[in-house]
């Protein structure tokens, strides 16, 4: 059986895969179903070679890294025990390849944006090639989470709003604390007299009649018991002042002596 080789090329990157068709599953003569090896040549760097698991590890790291980079939120991909890892490194990208041999230092490649784009395009071509029937496990691109995107907003801008809010709250609290609370016994006699002059059944009955004519007594019965009690209580509020103890007592007395709420017209 002839060994097949497919090549995917970009300006600074060349990816070659070799293998055989898996005849047992009925694959065509040009398809690669059994991967025997692959090599990646990056311009100006050492040529890399590996097996299927290394290719899958490369795909698992480079594709999500590119996905995050499009959203402007680059981060490290690849576990410490993974054969491949990718780190953002200033304006460049650091690709780390760890050997399975013990006591072998990892190989580090520094790629610029153009070289990374070339590598991503090569891997895209490989994944989309219908002649490769390897069932490579590649992660599907997904929208990022809000927490992942938060990092791209500078820290100062992120904390500015909560700090301003807390400062405004503190300032409002301090101002309200400085305003003196009015004492209960500090009313002047003029204030106390004012509302009492309003307790005039003849004058205060008019608004109640106009607002709820169905429930109140007829205009001719302005001195009806329930109405007098109600107007007597409402008078201080109409004047726009707080009911003073004296005025309230007087109006309550009026209500109590003439009629009570229980005697209101039904």
């Amino acid at each position, binding site marked *: 059986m002839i060994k097949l080789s497919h090549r995917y090329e970009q300006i600074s990157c060349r990816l070659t895969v070799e293998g055989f068709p898996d005849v047992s599953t009925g694959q065509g003569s040009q398809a690669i179903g059994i991967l025997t090896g692959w090599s990646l040549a990056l311009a100006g760097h050492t040529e890399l070679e590996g097996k299927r698991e290394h290719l899958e590890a490369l795909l698992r790291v480079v594709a999500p890294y590119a996905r995050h980079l499009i959203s402007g939120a680059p981060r490290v991909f690849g576990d410490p025990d993974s054969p491949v890892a990718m780190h953002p490194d200033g304006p460049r990208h650091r690709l780390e390849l760890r050997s399975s041999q013990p006591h072998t230092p990892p190989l580090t490649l520094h790629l610029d*944006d153009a070289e990374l*784009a070339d590598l991503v395009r090569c891997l895209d071509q490989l994944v989309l090639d219908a002649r490769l029937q390897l069932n490579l496990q590649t992660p599907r691109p*997904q929208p990022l*989470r809000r927490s992942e995107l938060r990092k*791209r907003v500078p820290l100062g801008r992120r904390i500015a709003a909560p700090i301003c809010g807390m400062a405004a709250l503190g300032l409002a609290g301090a101002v309200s604390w400085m305003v003196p609370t009015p004492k209960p016994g500090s009313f002047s006699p003029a204030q106390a007299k004012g509302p009492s002059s309003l307790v005039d059944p003849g004058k205060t009955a008019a608004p109640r009649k106009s607002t709820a004519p169905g429930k109140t007594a007829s205009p001719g019965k302005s001195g009806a018991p329930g109405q007098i009690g109600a107007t007597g209580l409402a008078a201080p509020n109409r004047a726009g002042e707080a009911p003073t103890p004296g005025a309230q007592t007087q109006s309550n007395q009026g209500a109590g002596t003439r009629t009570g709420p229980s005697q209101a017209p039904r």
Partner: protein
Amino acid sequence: MPNVSTALSRPTPLPRRGLERLDLMLLCAEALDLNGGEAMVWMSEQLGYQSLFPNRVELWKRRCHNPLRRATRRGQLQVEDTDALIRILTAMAERLYPMLRQLLSAAEPESVSEQRWALFRGRLQELIEERLNLRRVGVRKLLDPLEGPQLCHQLILSLALSAGSGGVERLKASLLDPEP
């Protein structure tokens, strides 16, 4: 927030920020290609979107859903329309890939690279001033001499990484990102 794991499996309309980025990237493609408007219509025909965009006015009307536009259109863009625009953009990015690569390459001489960036930013600025609402903060950031170059670099890098058929899903996922 939409469920992240199923966001691409069911048709999800692009959020406001995604529409802004999509139109800005199309604008970048126009800045790179002097005949970009015509190329976009031609690409739409090549990809079989004549029923969606029978003429350039229809294409322009869909792009006007970008809230940063001077003459913006209200309402949400249909998923078929955004998918078609994404495919047109990735096809154009593939065609313009050599230029994108030149801009991004660190191997190029610095003076040449700076001239290329200055030319690109100048064209993009003209297009922005012609079509976008200059009172919007997002637009002012693009024209800012300090923040603008960084944003332009991010747009070009996004275009390069989403070039070709392999970039369609990647770009779409990126446009569906929630608000940070």
